[in-house]
Each structure stands twice: as C-alpha cells, then as structure tokens.
C-alpha cells in the first residue's frame, strides 16, 4: 500500500499522539514536525491540520511555545514538551500500543476454511 495514502481517519486517530512524540524528541517547529511525520512514513500532514493540533496540545498544557527569529525568515514558533506532556505521552502511547496490538491480532491473515 502506498504509504502516502493511508486512510485519513487512521491518521486522525493517532496524529495528536504522534505530534506530541515528535515534539518530545526535541524542541521543534511546525514545518519540521510535518517533515518528521513524513520521514516516519505517516504521509504528508497539511499545515491546516497540524497547527490546530499543536494549539490543542498547548491548551492542554502538554506543550509550550515561543516565537524566535528564523535564520533569515519571518520568525518561527518553537514547541517544547512539558513534564505533563511527557507523562501524557507515556500513558497514551502505552494505550495506543495495546489497542493496535489487539487490532493486529484480529487482522492476522488466515486461510479460509472450506
């Protein structure tokens, strides 16, 4: 299956968690998050999808942000994970892994009994 064409509802379910994971790796900014998700094989997330997710995570207190001058651009908004964000990532990632492993067990290819 073409990796760039996952059904959008699959990504929607896990995007918030993946964005939190990317920011937890290192301080980062919007476009770099998109590149990181693409490099991870999750497809291309649009700006219009990403920034509201970042804003929601910040409202929840899982990230903080600050504007800083870019190299020669108009300035970038950098995001850092908070301790609460790290704890939430730990819990939610555990939950997601349990969920996908159960779904995976159900989806094992079987030979159909005649």
């Amino acid at each position, binding site marked *: 299956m073409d990796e760039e064409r996952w059904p959008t509802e699959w990504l929607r379910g896990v995007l918030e968690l993946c964005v939190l994971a990317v920011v937890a790796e290192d301080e980062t900014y*919007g*476009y770099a998050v998109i590149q990181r998700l693409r490099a991870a094989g999750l497809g291309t997330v*649009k*700006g*219009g999808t990403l*920034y*509201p997710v970042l*804003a*929601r995570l910040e*409202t929840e207190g899982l990230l903080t942000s600050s*504007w800083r001058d*870019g190299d020669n*651009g*108009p*300035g*970038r*908004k950098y995001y850092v994970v908070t301790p609460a964000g790290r704890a939430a990532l730990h819990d939610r990632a555990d939950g997601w892994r349990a969920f996908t492993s159960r779904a995976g067990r159900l989806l094992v290819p079987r030979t159909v009994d005649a």
Partner: protein
Amino acid sequence: MTTSVETYRNDLLLALRLRDVPGPRIAEVLAEVESHVGETAEDPRETFGSPGGYAEQVAAALGLAGRGGLGGWLTALRGEAGLLGLLALAGGWLLPTGLFHLGAGTTGPAGIPATALMALGALIWLAVGLRLRLQISGTADRVLDPRTGADMAPATPRWAGAVSVGAPLTGLVLCYVLGLMTR
C-alpha cells in the same frame, strides 16, 4: 490559482473575527500561517484550506463552532453591533429627511420641525461614530503580531476614508437640493 499571502491573511482575519475568536489567538494563527508559508513557499489556500474553513477549525478548537457564514453575521447583529447598526440607520433616515424638509421649507412627518429632525439625526450619528472610534482604538482585543508586536489588522486605504465621509455628505447635500427643487 495561487493566493497571495496578504489576501489570504486578511480574509482569514475577517473570518476569525466573525467567529468571535479572541484577538491574541487570531494573531497567533495569522503568524503561524505567515511563518509556515514563508518557509515552505506553499500556497496558503492549498495547505490551510479556505479562510472560512480554517477559521471554522480554529474556532471549533476553542469551542466556538458554528458561528461562521450567515449565522455569524446574524449573531453579530444581535449584539452591540446590531444596535449600533439600527441607530445608524435611524440617523441615516432622520438627517436626510430633515435636510429635505429644510430645503422644501416644510415641516417633517407628524409636524416635527426640519431642524429638530436634523439635530436628532446628527446627534445619533455622532454618538454611533464616537462609540465606533472607541471600539477601534480600544486595546482589549487587538490583533498584535506575536513576533513584532505590530498591529496585524490591514491598514485602511486612504480612498476608503474619503469615500466613507464623502458618499454620505454628497447624499445629504443631494437631499437638501431635492427639497429646494420642490419649492
């Protein structure tokens, strides 16, 4: 078709305002769009969607969903803006009616003197104008760029100011002249 960042930004600002998104949040959203598009050279409409659609998403994230489009305008009309609009309309009827009767040398409806109609209309317009001026200069909900602190609201072109004063003035003079012609 590509959209210029400035056009998109101004459309988005209006769409967010219409949905009652607070000024500081609007400023963040506009700066995010500018910064992102400045970095990627993408068409803002391509990556963020239509200004209305994106504003809807931002508003929904703040629990302000369903305020856009016609509904948004109607909601806005029920508030203070609606009252100001009604008052401006009343003034916009009283002042020209008074001028017309002054020109014609007659009394207005219900025998009210032309000068009284004019005075009342002018007073209402003055009050509405002062209130609007106060709203615009108020700092409570301004959209200030989080990067530079500059005001992000689009500058009103010089001709817009001239038209907004010139057009009503011309109309008022016309009413007086029309009145004179009935003599």
